[in-house]
């Protein structure tokens, strides 16, 4: 029975994680070529199975500034988004955790409410708000504060607004989980020993919420690093993130091996923080 229970997740992981990953890995060392699909397999039957890896895609990623800059920009956007979500999510989570018990469920519900709308309408709403003839510019002009519309849409501001809006719940939930578990008598003990409320927060609340904060940061950082839709729809045209580079290689250049190499490199970049997190978790 126990074996059977393990079989289901094992099959799931094999079929939907390991197998696709293997396909992407093989693709990334394949030879690009004409035809459908546009690549040649990196192995052949020549009296036996012979592997003929093509390392050029990976060489290209390292050598070409275009891809290096895409990675750096993705890192910046994902890190900035995760940092902002942490900054906004911490007071929200603390507020919910310290609210009267009958308020907590409705407040958590409110955090999750955006998930009830589709992802694209939410991004679309930002376009409606921020474009030149949008609501924000309309109100500012109506008030007579500006003459010409502010270029809000297709800017870093719009990009981060959209990112933070989309990912904030992923930060609030782990923060809430760790803050609601925090034993309040610890804070009382600290204040009894002479700590002012600010010192209690700095020396007790914050360090004890750190694992939750790290989880929140990674839960936002990891998906945000590969985000494609939000930067594409809201961000500045010159923003070139890994997601867009991948899209272009795959659909415009039809260079599947380079696209796959980009995906593998992104995955490698994300495994690093995950490993770090596991280390810290194990140490506790």
């Amino acid at each position, binding site marked *: 029975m126990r074996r059977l229970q393990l079989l289901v997740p094992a099959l799931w992981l094999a079929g939907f994680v390991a197998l696709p990953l293997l396909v992407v890995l093989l693709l990334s060392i394949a030879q690009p070529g004409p035809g459908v699909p546009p690549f040649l397999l990196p192995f052949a039957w020549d009296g036996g199975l012979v592997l003929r890896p093509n390392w050029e895609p990976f060489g290209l990623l390292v050598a070409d500034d275009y891809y290096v800059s895409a990675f750096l920009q993705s890192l910046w956007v994902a890190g900035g988004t995760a940092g902002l979500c942490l900054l906004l999510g911490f007071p929200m989570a603390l507020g919910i955790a310290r609210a009267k018990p009958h308020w907590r469920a409705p407040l958590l519900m409110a955090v999750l409410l955006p998930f009830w709308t589709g992802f694209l309408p939410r991004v679309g709403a930002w376009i409606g708000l921020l474009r030149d003839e949008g609501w924000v510019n309309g109100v500012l002009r109506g008030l007579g504060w500006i003459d010409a519309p502010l270029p809000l849409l297709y800017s870093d501001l719009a990009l981060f607004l959209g990112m933070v809006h989309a990912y904030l719940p992923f930060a609030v939930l782990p923060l809430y989980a760790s803050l609601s578990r925090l034993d309040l008598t610890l804070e009382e003990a600290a204040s*009894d*020993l002479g700590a002012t409320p600010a010192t209690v927060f700095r*020396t007790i609340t914050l*360090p*004890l919420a750190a694992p939750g904060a790290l989880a929140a940061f990674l839960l936002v950082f990891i998906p945000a690093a590969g985000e494609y839709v939000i930067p594409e729809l809201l961000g500045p045209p010159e923003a070139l993130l890994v997601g867009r580079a991948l899209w272009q290689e795959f659909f415009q250049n039809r260079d599947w091996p380079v696209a796959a190499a980009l995906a593998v490199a992104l995955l490698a970049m994300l495994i690093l923080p995950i490993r770090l997190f596991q280390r810290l978790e194990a140490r506790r």
Partner: protein
Amino acid sequence: MGLLEIAGLAKRFGAVPALVGLDLRVEAGEFLALLGGSGSGKSTLLRLIAGFEAPDAGSIRLGGQDLTAMPPHARPLNMMFQSYALFPHLSVGNNVGYGLRREGTPRAEREARVAEALAMVGMQELAGRMPHRLSGGQRQRVALARALVKRPKLLLLDEPLGALDANLRERTGFELRALQRRTGASFIMVTHDQQEALALADRVAVLEHGRLVQAGPPRAVYERPATRFVAGFLGAANVLEGAPDAAGGLDCPGLGSTLRAPASMPAGTTACALRPERIALGQPVGGANTASGVVEDLAFRGDDSLLLVRAAGGTLLRVSHAEEDGPPPAIGSTVTMGWEAAAVVPLAG
């Protein structure tokens, strides 16, 4: 003037009154036990003194200083928590040093005082340990050292022995009292365990429904309970109901006999307390302060046996039978009982 003076302290949570106009005085160097059942208001009183709750009315003064509106971090007293509340992310040494750090004590002095406090509870070897690697008894000691390191004049202890197992309790109790004498601080200990309160405290204050019903030295409170509640709570005395007779005694139909105290019963007395260990078996029946009954049940307790005796009038009496007086009477047998007038304590309410 006492070290701690509490006057007219009242607190209610919603519609539930937790404390009702409580007055209490604690002298310097005194060990006071606050005794009461759950919901008696004893923990609320402790939290009000520490400053974690604000009173609805009344005042708290410590050494002449009014604490009532002062935030907890500014109050010159410390508390040991029932759960110990050790900071899980700090080592034993940093837990104990936390309070000194907040005062800005220089590093060298801080380290010396941390070492001294840990030595006081016999934990100097474990300063580098993290709290989750300590046993329950060790945690209790660290919590105690942390609460004492700032040398408070008043230490509040919330069920300090509550989480320890029975073996450790007695020893730790003695150590607690030795520490109290050595530091000269006043201790206020909250407990629901009457044995603990009687054994450790200089004075016992019994709380019921947010009121102080009796306070005094342990022996006095034990021997002369003021009310039915105190008599029942401390040592589970027999409470015998009756009506005063013409001769100054209390006629108890449930007992089938009359109770007589050394002096006449105060006017309006309707009940008396009689401790199980004050009742002697095999006494000749007849007249006041004697009774007969049938043994209904019996429990062996080591140094004595507890007998449940149904008196002739129908009341169930708790009677203690010492082991040295030979084997206890069998269940179902008829016994005769007698006691001295001094054992009869008239109750006020």
